[in-house]
């Protein structure tokens, strides 16, 4: 950095951003070392919301853990459910009826749209455009949460999926409402884009901020939109296809400028791809059973499995060790945002304090999942 020689003595200062700070999306602290307004060093401090979910998971039976997964990333409870039940299904080799697979895909893709809309709304909040864009995002989210309520009885903590299927079949009236929501989504995304994509303030604040080169993204184990905005074409739905994703025609969205703005673009693109998947799922969904009968006392065989899915925030994985009993012997959550935060100090160095807020917003953290 170029310094003007004035003869004045200068020194760096260390300040706390958080734990109670409007931009941290929860209780999250960053110890920032500053040279004037420029970041010299940054250290994330977390754990304020730590509940030791992994220990709780060992105490619970397999079934009791499903509602706990809702409380990881409380914006995407459906995809957390899916990652966990699929891990247990892999462990116990349970087949899932076809209709249940379609219902799961519909729920998870709706969750992806909700998550990305909220993430973009929160990013704009962080940039100082307080709550107007967020309200546009929440408007569409309300209709989707209504659908979740119809299916599961709950708007956010859905607790909907079970080993070998889902808890209830879709109620009457769900499909017509879903069709109308899906039909309205493209217009919603267009409106979002019209307001934001070429917005001068968004461009000025987001372009060339928080640049993450592809090799660094891979080295630091980044996942999800963060990785794809750095030009790495890696989506678990394509590379290690699970459930019935191989039946749908959709593209992996990547961008090449690796900055905050590209992460925004990737999220917009992924919302459009999710709409494509939803349209196809609506056409293909068959009639039939939605769950399989399992013994009342559920004991998977001994062994260990790791299962990962492409959750809206990145790779969500569960590593389960079973000793043949009713409870997991080890229940590990590979949380995407906790690991994405590893790269935060490298992204922020050399930027201004106000940019830290934008960079953190573009990583899209939820503290329930970071701290577990």
């Amino acid at each position, binding site marked *: 950095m170029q310094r003007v020689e004035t003869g004045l003595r200068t020194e760096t200062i260390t300040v706390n951003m958080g734990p109670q700070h409007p931009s941290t999306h929860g209780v999250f602290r960053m110890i920032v070392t500053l040279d004037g307004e420029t970041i010299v060093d940054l250290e994330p401090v977390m754990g304020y919301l730590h509940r030791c979910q992994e220990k709780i998971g060992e105490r619970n039976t397999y079934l009791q853990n499903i509602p706990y997964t809702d409380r990881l990333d409380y914006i995407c409870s459906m995809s957390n459910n899916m990652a966990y039940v699929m891990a247990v299904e892999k462990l116990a080799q349970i087949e899932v009826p076809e209709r249940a697979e379609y219902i799961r895909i519909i729920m998870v893709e709706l969750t992806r749209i909700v998550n990305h809309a909220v993430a973009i709304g929160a990013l704009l909040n962080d940039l100082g455009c307080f709550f107007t864009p967020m309200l546009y995002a929440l408007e569409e989210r309300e209709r989707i949460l209504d659908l979740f309520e119809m299916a599961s009885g709950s708007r956010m903590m859905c607790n909907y999926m079970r080993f070998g299927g889902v808890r209830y079949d879709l109620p009457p009236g769900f499909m017509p409402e879903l069709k109308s929501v899906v039909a309205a989504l493209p217009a919603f995304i267009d409106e979002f884009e019209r307001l934001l994509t070429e917005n001068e303030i968004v461009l000025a604040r987001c372009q060339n901020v928080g640049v993450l080169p592809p090799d660094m993204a*891979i080295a630091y184990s*980044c996942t999800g939109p963060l990785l794809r905005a750095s030009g790495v074409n890696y989506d678990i739905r394509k*590379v290690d296809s699970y459930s019935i994703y191989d039946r749908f025609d959709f593209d992996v969205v990547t961008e090449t400028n690796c900055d905050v703005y590209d992460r925004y673009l990737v999220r917009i693109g992924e919302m459009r791809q999710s709409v494509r998947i939803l349209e196809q799922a609506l056409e293909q969904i068959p009639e039939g059973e939605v769950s399989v009968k399992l013994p009342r006392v559920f004991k998977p065989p001994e*062994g*260990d499995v*790791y299962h990962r899915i492409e959750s809206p925030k990145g790779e969500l*994985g569960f590593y389960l060790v079973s000793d043949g009993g009713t409870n997991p012997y080890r229940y*590990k959550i*590979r949380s995407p945002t906790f690991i994405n935060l590893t790269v935060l100090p490298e992204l922020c160095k050399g930027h201004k304090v106000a940019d830290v807020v934008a960079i953190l917003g573009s990583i899209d953290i939820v503290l329930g999942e970071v701290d577990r």
Partner: protein
Amino acid sequence: MSREIYERLVEALPEASFEYLEEKDPAISVKTDDLFEVARYLKEDQGFDYLSAVTGVDYPDRFEVVYHLYSMKKGTRPLTLKVSASKEEPEVPSVTPIWPGANFQEREVYDLMGIRFVGHPDLKRILLWEGYKGHPLRKDFPLEGYQAIGQEEPS
């Protein structure tokens, strides 16, 4: 795929010893002393450039650290590596110099499971606070903790 990698490992690093575990997810078991060399070989010669997850498991007779690796270029399925550590003084070489993404995960395993990662640049607690007593994910940790709430030493 794991089988192939295992055969290549045996060929490339003759002085190290490996074991192939045929399970639901096939895994390769490595000796603690060889881990660093094996990790470097896997990254540089076999293209496993991405470390996804680091997990500690407390078995009755040993601690185990499990690594899940992918290759971004080849888009392969996960490769599982396992190393064991002793119950008395669990120590495992850190792979953070090879995959920087291991940094927070190794700190988490140290924090909750009490396994020391030798060579880690800044090994300290991450989710719990400095001064907390014990490692909660160990099987012998009492559910109510070693200290009453409010009596912990301040950080």
